[in-house]
C-alpha cells in the first residue's frame, strides 16, 4: 500500500506540508510516528520465535550425539532412534489414510455435489478443522481403544491422527479442484470426457501441486499433535512389530520427559525431540510456501 500513495499521495502530502496549522501538523506527525511504532509490533512475534528456537537448540544440542539420534537399543533409556522411526511410520500411515479420505471427499465435493449440498459439506469440514484435538483424542480413545478393542496401540494412534488430518486435506483438495479454470473444464467435457477422465487426466495435473501442498500441510500439523496420541497410545522401547503394538511418538517423548529434573538426560531427550519436531515442521512450512508461490505463477501461466 505504500506504493499506492506514491503517485497521488505525494501531491496531497505536499499540499499538507505547506499547511502549517497545528491540526495538520499533528495529523501528519501522528501518521509518521505510527508508521514507526506499528512495525515494532512485528518484534512481538519475531522475538519469541527466535528465543524459542534458540532455547530449544541450546538445550538439545550439547548432548545430542549420533548415538542418541539413531540408537534403537531397547536397553538404552535415553535414545531417540525408536521414537523417530516410530513417528515416521505413524505419519506414513496416518497421512496415507488422511489423503485417501480427504482427497476422494474433496474431489467428490468439488465435482459431483450440487452447489447447496457442497456448501453444507464445506461447512462441516470447516467445523472439523477448528475442533480441538483433545476432542478428537477422546473420540479415538472411546471408539478405537475401547469399543473396537484396539488398545493403546499404533493403529489407534495413527487412525486418530488420520481423522484429525483428513479435514485439512479435504478442504485443500476441494479448493484445488474447484479453482480449475472454467475454460479448461468446459473444454474437457465439451470434448466428450467422462468425469473420471476429467478428474484424473485433465484436472489432476493442474491441481497436483496444490494437493501436494495440502499433504505437506497435513503432515506438518499432524506431526506436532500431542493430545490425540497421548490418549490413544502408550510408550514402547521398540519399534512396533505389529499395528496393535504400543508406539512412542516424538511429542509423547516430550510430554513424558518435560518435567524431569534439570540436567538429567531425560530432559535433554525432551529437548532433542522438540528440536527435531521444530526442524521438520519449519522445513515443511517452507516447502509449503515455496510450492504455493510457484503454483501461483503456474496458474497465471495457463492464461497466456
Amino acid at each position, binding site marked *: 500500500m505504500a506504493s499506492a500513495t506514491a503517485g497521488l499521495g505525494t501531491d496531497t502530502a505536499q499540499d499538507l506540508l505547506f499547511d502549517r496549522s497545528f491540526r495538520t501538523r499533528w495529523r501528519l506527525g501522528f501518521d509518521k510516528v505510527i508508521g514507526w511504532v506499528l512495525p515494532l509490533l512485528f518484534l512481538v512475534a519475531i522475538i519469541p520465535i527466535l528465543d524459542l528456537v534458540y532455547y530449544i537448540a541450546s538445550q538439545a544440542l550439547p548432548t545430542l550425539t549420533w548415538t542418541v539420534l539413531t540408537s534403537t537399543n531397547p536397553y*538404552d533409556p535415553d535414545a531417540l532412534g525408536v521414537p523417530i522411526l516410530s513417528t515416521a*511410520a505413524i505419519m506414513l500411515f496416518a497421512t496415507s489414510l488422511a489423503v485417501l479420505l480427504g482427497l476422494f471427499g474433496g474431489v467428490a465435493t468439488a465435482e459431483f455435489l450440487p452447489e447447496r449440498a457442497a456448501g453444507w459439506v464445506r461447512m462441516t469440514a470447516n467445523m472439523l478443522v477448528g475442533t480441538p484435538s483433545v476432542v478428537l483424542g477422546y473420540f479415538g480413545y472411546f471408539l478405537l481403544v475401547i469399543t473396537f478393542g484396539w488398545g493403546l496401540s499404533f493403529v489407534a494412534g495413527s487412525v486418530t491422527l488420520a481423522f484429525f488430518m483428513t479435514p485439512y486435506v479435504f478442504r485443500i483438495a476441494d479448493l484445488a479442484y474447484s479453482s480449475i479454470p472454467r475454460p479448461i473444464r468446459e473444454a474437457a467435457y465439451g470434448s466428450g470426457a467422462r468425469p473420471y477422465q476429467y478428474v484424473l487426466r485433465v484436472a489432476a495435473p493442474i491441481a497436483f501441486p496444490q494437493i501436494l501442498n495440502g499433504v505437506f500441510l497435513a503432515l506438518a500439523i499432524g506431526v506436532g499433535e500431542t493430545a490425540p496420541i497421548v490418549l490413544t497410545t*502408550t510408550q514402547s522401547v521398540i*519399534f512396533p512389530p505389529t499395528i496393535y503394538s504400543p508406539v512412542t511418538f516424538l511429542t509423547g517423548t516430550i510430554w513424558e520427559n518435560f518435567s524431569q529434573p534439570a540436567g538429567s538426560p531425560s530432559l535433554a531427550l525432551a529437548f532433542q525431540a522438540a528440536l527435531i519436531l521444530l526442524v521438520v515442521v519449519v522445513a515443511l512450512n517452507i516447502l509449503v510456501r515455496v510450492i504455493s508461490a510457484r503454483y501461483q505463477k503456474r496458474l497465471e501461466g495457463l492464461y497466456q
Partner: protein
Amino acid sequence: MKRRSGGMSVGVAVAIAIVLLIVGIAGGYFLGKSTTSSTNNNTINLTETGSSLLYPLFKNYWFPNYTASNVVLSAASTGSGTGQSSAELGLVNIGASDGYLTNASTTNLINFPVAISAQLIYYNLPAPLNGVHLNLNGSILAEIYSGVITTWDNPEILAAQPASVASELSAMSAQTIYPVKRSDSSGDTFLFTSLCYMSLASFPYPVSTSGLTGFSGANVLTGNGNSGMVSTAKGQVGSIAYIGISYEASAAAAGLQYAAVGNNATLANGTYAATASDYILPTTATVSNDANLGLTRLDFATYGLAVSLILGGSYAGATTLVHGGGGTNAAAGVLAYPIVNLEYALIKTVPGGTVVTAAALAATVAFMHWALSYGNYNSAGASSAWIDGVNFVPLTPEVIGYDNVELASVSGIS
C-alpha cells in the same frame, strides 16, 4: 497459447521429491523393523504404566538390565491411578501403583509388591532452615493440608522443634505455607492422605489417589508427577511437598530439605515433645523397621498382599485405616519412619484381550521372578545396586514368599 503440459515440469519435480520422501519414510519403517527386531517378530513387549515413584526404578534400572531373550519392557510415568485403571482394563501388562487396589480380584488382578519405598516430606525454606531437618508429624501435616495451619510460625510447628530451630521459624514472621499436592491421580497422594487420615480425626478428605482434589486455596500449589512436585516446590519459598524417595537426588539438587517425621505418641499429650527419638529421619534402617512393624499386620488369606505400612506399628488390620486413631508407632527403642509403603505391580491372573496374552503373561511372571530375586538382592545377599539407586529397601523374605505364592496362582503358570 502456452502449452498446458509445460506446467507439468513443476509437478514432475515435486513428484520426484515426494517419491523420495515416501521411499525414505518407508525405508525408515522397514529399517526400524529390522534393526529393532534383533528382537525378531517374536519379541514380547511388556508395557508398564503408572506410578511415577516406581518409574525411575523401572525405566533407568530394572528394564534396561533385564536381558531375557525376546522380552523387552516399556515404562511410562502416568500416575498410580492410571496404572490401576489401565491394568484393570487390560490395556497394559503391568500397572504400577504406590497404593494397593482393594477388590483387585474382581478384575482378575493381584497386588504384587516389588519393592519397599518411602515418602519424604520436603520443604523449601531459606537458610539456615534448609540445612536442618524440621520435626513434623502426621497431625501437623494433616492440619497443613486441610488449611488449619497456614504459616510456618504456627505454635504447633514451633512446639515440635528444638529451641534454635523454633526461633528461626518465628524470625521468618508469618511466612506462608504453600502446600503442594499432586495434580494427577497419584499413589503418593494415597499414601499421604492415609497418613493424614490416621493422624487426625478431623481430616476432611478421603484416602484415595485423588483424595486431595477438594483441597484448594490461594496457597495450594500443584505438581504433575513426582518430578513436577520437585519443580513446583523449588519454585516457591515456603512450600511443602510430599515426594517419593526415588526423587531424593533431584530434590536435593533443587535445594529442598526433608523433614524428620514423628509418630503420634506425641499427640496423646496434646503437645509435641522435641525429643530426638520422637522424630525420625528416613534411612534404610528406619524404613525397614517400619516395614517390619507394618508387615505384622499382613493378612494374606483375607487381603492378599494389600497392606498399609503407614505408621507401621500403630494399629491393627491390614487395610483398615482408623480415623485419627494412630497410637504409638514404635515398639520400645525401635525407630520407625512412618511413611513407608509397598510398591505394587498390578498384573492380571488370567490372560485376556490383545495385550495380556498367554505369552505376555508368562513373560510377565518370568520378569517378576527376576525382580524378586536379582532386582531386589545382589549376589552377596545385600540390596541390589538398583534398589539402592532409588533409595528403596528390598522386600523382606516373608513378602517374597507370599509373592511367589501369588505368582503360582497366575493361570497357566506352573
